[in-house]
């Protein structure tokens, strides 16, 4: 091991990625450059924009606020985990239905924040959705279609649960 490097092992979307990294390596760079999952984006350097939002052990986190070493041994979900077997997640379906994205750069972060929101609150009000994505900046859509999409997805997920 090179001097000063730290061995880090992170489970991302069910797959384990292990590497020797500098202690100052940001988690977002681990995800993008070492795990080579490019769906997680970088939009600022002040943890303001939310483009890099992921889930760590189910909690939403801006992956630029954390060092990779802090995520050692933990489980991470990124946008790439949402669709399974080519079937879109209900949030992805709803974002598509409502044209809740234009350039798509904020979308992965928006989806992860929304996933977290729905995991805590299965039937959020419009106000709660706005609160839930308050840390994610979108410069294209004006948010309205995103809010509609999250509301719609929540309804569909709940309807699905009832019929089960």
């Amino acid at each position, binding site marked *: 091991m090179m001097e000063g490097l730290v061995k880090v092992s992170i489970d991302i979307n069910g797959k384990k990625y292990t590497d020797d990294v*500098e202690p*100052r*390596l940001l988690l977002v760079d681990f995800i*993008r450059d070492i795990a080579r*999952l*490019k*769906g*997680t*984006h*970088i*939009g*600022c*350097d*002040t943890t*303001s*924009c939310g*483009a890099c939002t992921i889930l760590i052990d189910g909690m939403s986190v801006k992956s630029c606020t954390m060092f990779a070493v802090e995520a050692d041994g933990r489980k991470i979900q*990124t*946008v*790439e985990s*949402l*669709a399974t077997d080519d079937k*879109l997640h209900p949030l*992805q379906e709803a*974002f*598509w*239905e409502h*044209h809740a*994205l*234009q*350039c*798509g*750069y*904020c*979308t*992965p972060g928006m*989806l992860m924040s929304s996933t977290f929101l729905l995991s805590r609150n299965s039937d959020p009000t419009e106000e709660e*959705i*706005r*609160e839930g*994505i*308050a*840390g*994610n*900046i*979108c*410069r*294209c*859509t*004006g*948010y*309205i*279609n*995103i*809010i509609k999409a999250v509301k719609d997805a929540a309804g569909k997920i709940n309807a699905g649960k009832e019929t089960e």
Partner: protein
Amino acid sequence: MPQKAELVVEKAPETTAAFKYMGTPVKVAEDLIPLQGKGQYLDDVEIPGTLYMAYTLSPYGHAKIKKIDTSKCLELPGVHYVLTGEELKANMDPYMQIAPPPSGNLKDYPLAVDKVRYYGEPVAAVVASNAYIAEDAAELVDVEYEPLPVVTDAEDALKEGSPVLHDSVGNNLVWRGVWDLGDAEKALKEADYVVEDTVKTHRYAAVPLETSGVLATYDQSVDTITVYSVNQMPMFSLPIICGALRMPPSKFRMILPPNVGGAFGGKIINFTHITVVAYLSKLLKAPVKYVENRSENIMSGTHNNERIFHVKLAVRKDGRVTGAYMKAVDNCGAYPRYEPAGAVIWAQVVPGIYDVQNVYVDFSQATTNKGPTGPVRGYSRIQHNFMWERMMNRVAQKLNMDPAEVRRLNLIKAEQMPYEGPSRTIYDGGDYHKAFDTLLDTIEYGKWREKQKEARKQGKLIGIGLSAVIDSGANNFAQVKIINPHFPASGSMEVGLVMIDQFGTLVARTGTTDQGQSHATTFGQIVSEVFNTGPENVVFQQGFDSISNVWAAFSGAYASRSAVMAGTALYYAAIRLKEKVLTIAAHALGELESDLEAKDAAVVSMKTDKKLPLGDIATLAWLDVNKLPEDMEPGLVSYAVYKPDFTYNMPDEKKRVNNTLTYSYAIHGTVVEVDPETYEMKILKHGVVSDPGFMINPLVVEGQEMGATLHGISAALMENLEYDEDGILLTSNFWDYLVAGAKHMPDIDMKTIVTRSTSSVLGVRGVGEGGGGPIGSIVNAVEDALQPLGIKLLSSNLSANELYSKANKK
């Protein structure tokens, strides 16, 4: 290219009912890519062995560079190279200037030479083995500065004795021009009232969520630099870069990745980054990558034009405005990199949305110690529209009239359409009164005026504001000749290519570059319409590559041109290709072309019901070519270049020209409540009624209008690039430079009324920039709310802080 000598294309049918694929809110297929994290944006492009670049930035607003010591920087392990302005100056020419001398003598390089002129200006470029080391190393470049006096205000910059930014120019004037249209002086003389005021627009930025970036690599085997960038007008920027680097454009391959994370005008003057990274990649014979960090993007990634207007309006007793006389001074920032184009682009909307034929404008633009300006969504028209909307309220105040009445009285009438403005802009149809009345209904204008009366009795501050704006689209480059008659461009054009591959799939390409405007789906709908076949049979590949894509020198996505320009080019190309397909099918089926029609990925006979799939026709055209009609050129490729006729194509001696092809319009109405203690502003209602012309995909068009509304709200209430007296930018990151989030965006009541454009082939108007509609309605609403306190507002940006101190100064 197989094409017929003459092409007669009728304008598309008048009603949407005639269309099957165009005019419907088709879900956007390309949305599925970023939704699953599968998009490829610039920073996702990887080339093995890539080195990373970071800039050393100026900590001063204005300072002489006395010495640059790179020794400490070069000692850091992993550092490959440090580039300074001195080296660049020896190896490149300064960028071409649009303005003629003396301001055309200005020397602009991508790294500061001899002195820095704005806070955050790149001074050195450091190349290292990874991005972390590059950032560290950039801070180790030791620059010795001698601070110089700073000027940040454009009017101050034009005063005698002001600090001068560019010694080669001699003063700070970039360009001055006078428009003397109709007879404004006479109008003022004969007016019942002269309404006079000063209006200011503030500085903000485009800030797309993805910043600018460049990846360049030099390929020795073909002596070509390949550049991946996010430039919005790649083929227009190319000669600017190649001219400076003294190399032919054909030795420079421009690529845009399939996804670009928004632009809003802010990805045009990033040609400076492209120049530096391209230079370094050739010098070091290695791929070099640079991605702006957010601060760099805010400091120098395109600011909009700050402008101050001193206006006099000639007004009749009844509220009719008969003339306008104004002096406007524009703040260009440190370097004119697309400027002074902004000094003529406002003239797309000389009378705003109003019927005013006597307009006098004395326009100047000055360099100052602030970041460079350039196109930002609504480029240069936002300012002019805002001025009109503030002045219309002043007229209402002067005459004690309802601001809605004043506007309605002055709006251009439907029967005047198409309307020729005083500078020969041709407003291409529309019913402004209908839109205006629809807006008043939408926001329940009358009801809110009643509520306002009640609220005031209870000490509540509620205000209602209106704003009616023109949002011009698809520019005519000839307007730049007003600034410099030798500027080598006029008109506009775009290219469409439609082909059918060996298996019968329709393939479409054009030179516009998508940054989130859903081009693939929209353009697919056009090709689908012509071939009467579902979008699943049409492939439109996103991204751009100058060696494999079709392009015109004007290619790109800017100035709200894509649907109008590329849409038309593709429509023509598809029609040409369909003619050939029908000819081949007629020959193969032994029928008359006039009995055949294209339908569902095939050609069918209306007479015999015989059917020939496009796949079979493709086999004939590409492979079994001896079966083609005699003398027919094999292949199924069609190409069309669309060059619109602007009617008044070139500016005359009075600077009159039709600046753009289409003029969409939007009416905004805002109801706000201002907290009487904290002066926080809350939007209670916001309505928009716009007329985008025929909508190829209403889902997409409405999305663009909504985005433009967000930008306006954010600009009026939040975004502000604030400099101190030393030229230090105080809002250089997302902590201080606040952009609207989900909690700031009110519900928007949005409606469209559709009248076809009388100038564009498909009846569409360029949309998406929005003309800054919400800025005017918000500022007017807040001033209306504060009317009991007698507070007058000046600027296009409002903060509770500022209102509080205004209220407490009294």
